[in-house]
């Protein structure tokens, strides 16, 4: 038992508690805030698989976040005006059903991650950071210039999509749904890290040559990790779009990539709960500091700087010690 195990147990307990606490306050904005934390944490959980386990510093995860968002936007906008997306060669209708939208979002962002990964994983180090950034920017400018779904202005979806058996328009129901999805993603990512695939991926991060010597191709490990990572971030994008009932090219901007990365680093790279703690802290700070000063980002910047310079390994790394730290 390491200290991180205890911390993780405590955090799991807290995570289960948060929806009840939010519900008991009865305040709509707290419910929305907590939902936002869960969804952004989910995006971070996705990135953490590439970044923490695989050591792949992707500065373009906004691409998958955006693709998920646009998958939701495209399907729902066609459904709300009963206009099919395509009539030939097969009839494709829009849909307002979350499970279908999520599936489409995950499959399309996984495919994008496969394509981007095959091309980007040929490079490494700074070049990898920059080429993933370039792919994100490519999609950003594409959506700005693509008038069909709102172009630069984005697109509003009037009614939140539906989930069988739930009324997602009731904030607390959507909140619980987001926490269940986040919990499943955390469970999956913990299983993944302990699986033989996860161990091989970790080994490839620490010493790619050795992994290659024992007959495992690091490229394929990394590609699979990148695809899984993209799919989870894409799911978060679809849910984030549903939370705001709005999509816009900002979802693809490099600021979004930077923010998702901040969640992971603030909480602790490669730590199971890193993205959750990071996203919660970020949103909390945004909320608290934003109330104090219009220039709250100065304080956020100073805090981030302090974390990088003095609290290496993020919040969980500081609390739990450095034994599984990113390296």
């Amino acid at each position: 038992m390491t200290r991180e195990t205890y911390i993780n147990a405590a955090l799991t307990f807290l995570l289960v508690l948060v929806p009840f606490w939010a519900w008991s306050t009865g305040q709509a904005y707290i419910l929305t805030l907590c939902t936002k934390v869960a969804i952004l944490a989910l995006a971070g959980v996705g990135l953490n698989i590439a970044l923490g386990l695989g050591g792949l510093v992707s500065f373009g995860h906004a691409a998958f976040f955006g693709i998920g968002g646009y998958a939701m936007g495209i399907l729902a906008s066609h459904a709300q005006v009963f206009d099919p997306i395509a009539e030939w060669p097969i009839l494709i209708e829009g849909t307002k059903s979350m499970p279908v939208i999520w599936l489409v979002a995950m499959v399309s962002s996984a495919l994008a991650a496969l394509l981007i990964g095959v091309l980007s994983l040929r490079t490494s180090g700074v070049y990898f950071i920059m080429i993933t950034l370039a792919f994100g920017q490519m999609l950003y400018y594409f959506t700005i210039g693509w008038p069909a779904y709102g172009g630069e202005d984005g697109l509003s979806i009037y009614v939140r999509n539906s989930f069988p058996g739930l009324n997602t328009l009731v904030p607390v129901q959507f909140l619980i749904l987001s926490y269940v999805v986040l919990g499943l993603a955390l469970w999956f990512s913990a299983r993944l890290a302990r699986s033989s695939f996860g161990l091989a991926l970790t080994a490839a991060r620490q010493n790619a040559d050795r992994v290659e010597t024992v007959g495992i191709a690091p490229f394929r490990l990394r590609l699979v990790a990148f695809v899984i990572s993209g799919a989870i971030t894409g799911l978060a994008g679809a849910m984030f779009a549903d939370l705001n009932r709005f999509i816009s090219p900002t979802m693809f901007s490099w600021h979004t990539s930077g923010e998702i990365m901040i969640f992971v680093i603030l909480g602790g790279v490669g730590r199971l709960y890193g993205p959750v703690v990071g996203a919660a802290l970020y949103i909390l700070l945004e909320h608290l500091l934003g109330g104090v000063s219009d220039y709250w980002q100065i304080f956020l910047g100073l805090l981030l700087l302090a974390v990088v310079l003095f609290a290496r390994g993020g919040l969980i790394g500081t609390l739990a010690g450095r034994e599984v730290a990113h390296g």
Partner: protein
Amino acid sequence: MTFLLFAEQMLNGLQFGIMLFLMAAGLTLVFGVMGLINLAHGSLYMIGAFAAAWVAGLTGSFVLALMASLAAAAAAGALIELTVIRRLYKRDHLDQVLATFALILILSEGTRWVFGSFPLYLDVPSYLSGPVTLPGGIQYPLYRLAIIVAGLVVAGGLFALIARTRIGIQIRAGEADREMIAALGIDISRLYTLVFALGAALAGLAGALVGAIQSVQVGMGEPVLILAFVVIVIGGIGSIKGALVGALLVGLTDTMGGVLLPRFFALFMDPSAATTIGASLGSMLIYILMAVVLIVRPSGLYGSA
């Protein structure tokens, strides 16, 4: 498309490329010598532009404004190198990305706090305004021509500095082997501060020169920063020559793509669709260029593998 329009757009692309080179030179030097990714380089560009607009507003002199941009950006560069950046040289790229991202937040919001959210304007001085007729009957704004010339002079000076002076030798030695030059008795941390301030000053100058064409506002540095990264990645990180080639390539591709692609699509599509598809593909073009370069040469055109 007439020859005149084509020539004018080529000059625009050249001007854009030269400005990108001023930005990219500092980035690539800092990466080559210190191994640091500096996302906050765009903030130095912004600081240069704000300093120029402020001084021009006080004194009315464009020359003083340019000098202020150099001084302010160099000073800001030296300050952040001494306080933050030098702690990052031994860290991995992830820490560098995050810390300099934090610096962007601090510098952008700090500038907004001092100057407010409204854009400032920096006027082109009267002796550089108006068009000039070039050989071949090309009408071109004198100011943009002056930027091209000024940028080329600065680029030439930078190459001379690196190739011919003692500082240049130290910089090149620092890229090759930093332990060795420290062992030879060169104050490496002073050299690092100097290189960082030099790169900052170039970025500040670019900000001031471009600030007179566009408006001076918070956030102006970020789009240019991303482009400068595209430039140095295409050129090969650490190579000044690569930065120059990459900058011209990106400047010309972006400008000419935006002009030519809509016309190309108009050959076989209806005009409005051609315009939208052409324009959106045009703005993606440099990223496509970068991806292609990296796929063919994973460490850029002039990068060492």
